């Protein structure tokens, strides 16, 4: 009996490896997701525990709800700003600390430190730093003769404040990811290019960038998903999507309708539309930035 060929045995082992993760995924993520989908067709009140079937009504309302479009717009605005800025800075830092010299470890450590400060803490600290009169950020801007940036009160620039916070918090992490990628590029490629007379800029664009494609794909996909889901700084730094709703992102919209208006059906319908949008974007990105993970 040769039911268990080499190949089958590998498959069985693989499924066993995946089983714990898949079981938990099924129970705590996919199952709640399915229940959310069902909820989105109902009018659900958490307090009275009553539900009545609405069909597509929640979705129809959403598609006519200007504040929903606005929250989606705010999420995308944030993402479009933060993705290139954060990625470029992370790559720059990685290039700066790539070559080892005495003390380089100190710089790597320092650049990483914001990442290990919790988002809740960072958001409160930035809220105080952005204070128009006495916050450290504006005092310094004013002190060196630049105009102050009242992120907490000016709706036109409030989101920039979140971009700065997000970039400050995460660029060190992605620096390390880039660093790992950079170190995988064989040094002789650079030496060969140098002998052929390629300058540093040419070497960057014809060796570094193309060979970083896989890492770059990872960074961009993860940054996009994180950016679109941003919540804590909106809740804490901007005290709930302020000023004048200019930082109300989709995640905040969902939270607000679920736990402030207690309208679970409406909130889950919004969450579903949002989920589909993020999923489509991620799938497109994965196709465009196709990496050579061994499938």
């Amino acid at each position, binding site marked *: 009996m040769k039911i268990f060929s080499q*190949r089958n045995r*590998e*498959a069985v*082992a*693989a*499924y066993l*490896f*995946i089983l*714990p*993760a898949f079981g*938990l*995924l099924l*129970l*705590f*993520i*996919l199952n*709640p*997701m399915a229940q959310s989908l069902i*909820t989105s067709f109902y009018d659900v009140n958490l307090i009275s525990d009553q539900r009545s079937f609405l069909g597509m009504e929640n979705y129809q309302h959403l598609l006519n709800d200007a504040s929903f479009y606005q929250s989606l717009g705010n999420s995308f605005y944030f993402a479009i700003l933060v993705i290139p800025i954060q990625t470029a800075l992370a790559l720059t*830092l990685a290039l*700066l*600390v*790539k070559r080892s*010299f005495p003390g380089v*470890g100190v710089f790597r450590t320092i*650049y990483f*430190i*914001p*990442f*290990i400060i919790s*988002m*809740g*803490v960072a958001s*409160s*600290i930035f809220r105080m*730093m952005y*204070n128009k*009169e*006495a916050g*450290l950020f504006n*005092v*310094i801007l004013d002190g060196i003769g630049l105009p102050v940036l009242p992120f907490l009160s000016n709706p036109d620039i409030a989101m920039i404040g979140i971009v700065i916070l997000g970039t*400050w918090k995460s660029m*060190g*992490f992605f620096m*390390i990811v880039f*660093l*790992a990628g950079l170190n*995988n590029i064989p040094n002789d490629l650079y030496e060969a290019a140098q002998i052929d007379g390629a300058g540093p800029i040419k070497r960057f664009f014809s060796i570094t960038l193309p060979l970083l494609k896989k890492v770059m794909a990872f960074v961009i996909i*993860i940054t996009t998903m994180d950016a679109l*889901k941003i919540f804590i700084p909106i809740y804490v730094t901007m005290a709930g999507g302020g000023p004048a709703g200019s930082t109300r992102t989709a*995640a905040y919209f*969902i939270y607000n309708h*679920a736990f402030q208006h207690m309208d679970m059906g409406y909130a889950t319908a919004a*969450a*579903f539309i949002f*989920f589909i949008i993020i*999923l489509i974007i991620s799938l497109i990105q994965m196709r465009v930035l196709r990496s050579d*993970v*061994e499938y």
Partner: protein
Amino acid sequence: MLNVIKVMLMTVIAFIVLLPVSWMVLSSFRLEEEIFKFTELGYHLLIPENWTLQNYRDIFSENQRPLDRYMLNTLFIAVTGTFLGLLVNSFAAFSFAKMRFPLKRSLFVIFLSTLAIPFEAIMVPQYMIIRDFGWLDTYTALIVPQIVWAFGIFLLVQFFSDIPRSLIEAARIDGASWLTIFFRVAVPMSWPAIITLGIITFVGKWDEFLWALIVISDDAKQVIQIAIASYSLETYTSWGMVFAASTIASIPTMIIFLLLQKYYIQGVTTSGIK
């Protein structure tokens, strides 16, 4: 010359990056009335005028909400959650990266698609499951639902996929089981990645906020971030206490990071991930 400019640039960036953190730490030693006192550039913008430990005394002597209790609660959740998470996610990542089996692509896409789910979308059904299991007000509720993490699997797949298949084939021919290959070949070759994921998971657990707010109502089992928020949400907010609690709350992650960074940042940079 170029190197001097480079180091100067790096120093300036380091200063900017450290500014919010240093401001937080230094402000925690200020008296309440001093915190927003200085509005001009100068030495006292960062350095307290009158150093005090009062904020620290306040947060630890608070009878209602002793900070050390929350620290221990969160530490337990974070350590257990990180350990279980690393085990479960690296198992899955290894099979996705290195093993051949039917439906691999579809399963991987299912895992990845959960990355796009905003937590807010599944929070309420998740709460109901926890309630039906009788896990409300338990540490289990804070640990188990968050063990599996598609991001972690995704990260480790990137690293595991760099392990040469030939190495695995060789071990197979020598009669090694897949479990042995995982622990003896894959894990030792991927320490930087695993430690990286460990740090990220730990920081994430330490950061726990919204979920704890929902499933934990027993104050004695609450987590650190909620405790800090409660200091700042009081009608009379003591910013000094917020600064002090934030500083204290940053210490455990800082220690773990500084202890492990040798394996992690340096590990990533010296050996690479061949």
